[in-house]
């Protein structure tokens, strides 16, 4: 009772501008960019896996399996410390290149999401009947055109609810960048909590915000899903 009795709403109120304009903006930017990059590279990986060149498929398959068997938080951490040296080796620079925490975490998330999105897009492409690319070919479209204008738009539309659901998971996962002490939403809340000694308030508030946003987004996805089902 004493805990709730001491609950200080004012701490949260005062921290709001910082939490949202700094923290949440970072979280949403990272989520959006990682989702976009993940979708682009994921689609390429899916096309590689479905390619008639077996070795391309094997490379892509290995990549997906490899990424999926690593803990994300570990990779975020490692990558941040390794990238400067990889960059040095690639560019032949005399000292480790500097890569910001944001760029480093963005690359890590894109690499991870590409693996997850590729499986979704692969399922989406396979859900399109063989007659569709056949009809596109019969009209004279090349493989690339058939993918670009006929197969991928349908695959994307069919898989949109799953892609968005994965993006909600990504939104929650971005909180893992706290290991790089980046002020994302959780990081910002954590900073205020430490500074003001108000751990209960700040972590509870952070949990509520993640919960509400994810819930509303999931609800939106479900509505979208039923709308797509009607159109089809």
């Amino acid at each position, binding site marked *: 009772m004493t805990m709730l009795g001491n609950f200080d709403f004012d701490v949260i109120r005062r921290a709001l501008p910082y939490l949202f304009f700094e923290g949440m903006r970072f979280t949403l930017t990272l989520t959006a960019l990682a989702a976009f990059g993940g979708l682009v590279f994921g689609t390429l990986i899916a096309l590689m896996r479905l390619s008639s060149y077996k070795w391309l498929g094997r490379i892509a398959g290995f990549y997906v399996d490899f990424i999926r068997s690593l803990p994300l938080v570990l990779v975020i951490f490692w990558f941040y410390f390794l990238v400067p040296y990889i960059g040095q080796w690639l560019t032949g620079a005399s000292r480790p290149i500097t890569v910001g925490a944001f760029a480093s975490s963005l690359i890590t998330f894109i690499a991870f999401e590409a693996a997850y999105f590729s499986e979704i897009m692969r399922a989406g492409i396979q859900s399109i009947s063989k007659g*569709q690319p056949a*009809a596109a*070919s*019969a*009209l*004279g479209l*090349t493989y690339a055109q058939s993918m670009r204008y*006929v197969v991928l738009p349908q695959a994307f539309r069919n898989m949109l609810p799953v892609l968005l659901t994965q993006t909600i998971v990504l939104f929650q996962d971005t909180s893992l960048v706290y290991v790089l002490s980046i002020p994302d939403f959780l990081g910002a809340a954590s900073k205020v909590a430490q500074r003001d000694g108000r751990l209960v308030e700040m972590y509870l508030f952070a949990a509520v915000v993640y919960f509400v946003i994810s819930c509303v987004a999931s609800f939106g996805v479900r509505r979208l899903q039923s709308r797509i089902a009607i159109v*089809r």
Partner: protein
Amino acid sequence: MIEINHVNKWYGPTFQVLKDCTTSVAKGEVVVVCGPSGSGKSTLIKCVNALEPIQGGDITLDGVKVNDPKTDLPKLRSRVGMVFQHFELFPHLRIIDNLCLAQEKVLGRKHADAMVKGMKLLERVGLKDHAKKFPAELSGGQQQRVAIARALAMDPIAMLFDEPTSALDPEMISEVLDVMVDLAREGMTMMVVTHEMGFANKVADRVIFMDRGEIVEDAKKADFFGTPRSDRAQKFLSKILQH
């Protein structure tokens, strides 16, 4: 126009779907291909525009060898129209966009020109008012007429029909056949896989009968319907014509 010489095709190492098939379709000719299901007739027509590869023999289309690895297949395919059993309209595009896509991306026509051409062809198949709809909003017969218009938009030198009425409800078959009859009478070169013997009787110049991967009979229409030479063709005809 279409030359098919000693074509052999296998699925896997053992199953031979096409056995030494030889025939041809001259310019302006309408050839109907019929036969029991599994006889290889659909496979044969798909080999003509290389949607299916062949393992032996040659297919030549307007002087271009289809099974030559150096042949520019997209270009070749853009010159022959194909109509499928299940229509295969692009469901995410409006009707008019279904007609414009390949005109613009393959032939490089301007959007406005493609639209004019598309609308003209939709009018021709009686579906001008449906241009802004999506394929799923149309009946099967309407969708198949759109599919024919889509193929015609490419100004094809020949048209291939792969069982164009087999997936249709009976009351919609005639609206599709009417379009095809008109096309035939205008002199379009056509190769048509179908069971519609009424259509064959009306406009075909020749009828090919296939069974178990072989061309069993290849005869002028009058001869085919008069006195088919092979037992198998006679049996097939008596089965599908007795009703």
